[in-house]
């Protein structure tokens, strides 16, 4: 789990009496999160369901999720890190500067009340979305929130969980951790894994033009990445595996149509709390699965002579 203080969604359902969503909009992006896992379900220690739970939403604007919240805290854009730092001070009873509080767009009363509610909860959970982890501060924001959750355990039981977007992106982290020891952006060019976000993460590699070929599967960067990164994908030989001809397919040299995961391709997928679940595909696709195509590419590469580094020129002397 990478050291984060977390739990499964089943524990949230059965125990959580304080639920905080930070920088996420589950009502529109994860529509069944409230009803299946968190707010409205009755749990073993939450006999009255929604009545036994308090929900606090922190976001920069009032999204449709605010309707489901008991308390909505509108933080000023790009002030999440400051707000988290103030909360971390308040739970420890430290003094905070009035002008620092004013920066966040909230009052000291609101923040003190939030801090007290977190300390008094029997089981609290902080769900955080891309509104926190993808805005100014990025991974430092996530780190501050995870520290807040860890520090709250001096007073009560508290956990944190990222609201993961796309289907099996959690599985990607798990599989890369299992096979290489690192969760993403793993460079295997030296024959052993190296991890350095910012250097070996895709957007940085593409912006610098480091890659001279790309295999894209289960993603459509041609629709989501910054334009200079897409331009580089169009320059180099790009290979796409996808159930549809995507934006990325149109700029690629090779596209292979594959069966759709979970609809016509079987396998395993991880939920956002790192619980693996089997797929039950109802349809039979005329196309091969991604798994089969990747394995066939592997076999085709394996047939070629092994690559050896060019010989070092003999030392002069």
């Amino acid at each position, binding site marked *: 789990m990478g050291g984060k203080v977390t739990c499964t969604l089943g524990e949230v359902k059965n125990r959580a009496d304080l639920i905080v969503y930070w920088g996420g909009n589950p009502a529109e992006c994860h529509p069944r999160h409230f009803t299946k896992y968190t707010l409205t379900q009755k749990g073993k220690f939450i006999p009255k369901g929604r009545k036994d739970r308090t929900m606090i939403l922190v976001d920069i604007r009032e999204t449709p999720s605010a309707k489901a919240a008991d308390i909505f805290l509108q933080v000023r854009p790009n002030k999440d890190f400051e707000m988290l730092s103030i909360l971390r001070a308040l739970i420890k009873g430290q003094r905070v500067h009035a002008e620092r509080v004013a920066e966040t767009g909230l009052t000291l009363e609101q923040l003190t009340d939030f801090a007290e509610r977190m300390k008094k909860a029997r089981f609290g959970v902080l769900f955080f979305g891309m509104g926190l982890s993808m805005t100014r501060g990025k991974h430092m924001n996530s780190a501050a929130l995870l520290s807040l959750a860890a520090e709250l355990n001096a007073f009560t039981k508290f956990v944190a969980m990222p609201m993961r977007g796309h289907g099996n992106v959690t599985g990607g982290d798990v599989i890369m951790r299992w*096979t290489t020891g690192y969760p993403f952006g793993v460079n295997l060019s030296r024959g052993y894994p190296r991890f350095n976000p910012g250097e070996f993460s895709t957007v940085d590699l593409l912006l610098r033009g480091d890659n001279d070929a790309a295999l894209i*599967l289960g993603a459509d960067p041609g629709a989501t990445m910054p334009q200079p990164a897409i331009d580089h994908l169009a320059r180099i030989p790009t290979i796409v595996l996808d159930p549809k001809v995507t934006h990325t397919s149109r700029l690629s040299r090779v596209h292979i149509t594959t069966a759709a995961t979970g609809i016509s391709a079987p396998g395993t997928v991880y939920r956002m709390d790192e619980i693996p679940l089997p797929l039950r595909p109802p349809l039979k696709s005329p196309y091969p699965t991604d798994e089969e195509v*990747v394995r066939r*590419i592997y076999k085709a*590469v394996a047939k070629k002579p092994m690559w050896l580094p060019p010989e070092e020129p003999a030392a002069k002397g």
Partner: protein
Amino acid sequence: MELTITKNATCTFCGCVCDDIELHSDAERIVETKRACILGESWFRNHTAERLYPDALIDGKPATVDEAVEAAAEYLYNAHLPLVYGLSNVTCETQREAVALTEMIGGVVDSHTSL
């Protein structure tokens, strides 16, 4: 035509991965998605078992899967630092194969997490 009912099907659209969906399908498409949310319903209805696209494309022209696999292998084999990216909407079994392939071609493997 008789509909096939798939109970406890798993939806892979978002990170919730709801595994209590009941799907009714004929040979080609899913016609009913019980308990799925609005996003899940459009996800299941959007993908069919029809042959809507060519098996493969090389430089925009239809090709066989065999030819495309060979072409892909040739590009990846010849690259100094190939990138294997995405891995979101594929199974864990595929991700495992993708890491093995990356190791063999000496590349970088990365997912949406890095964005």
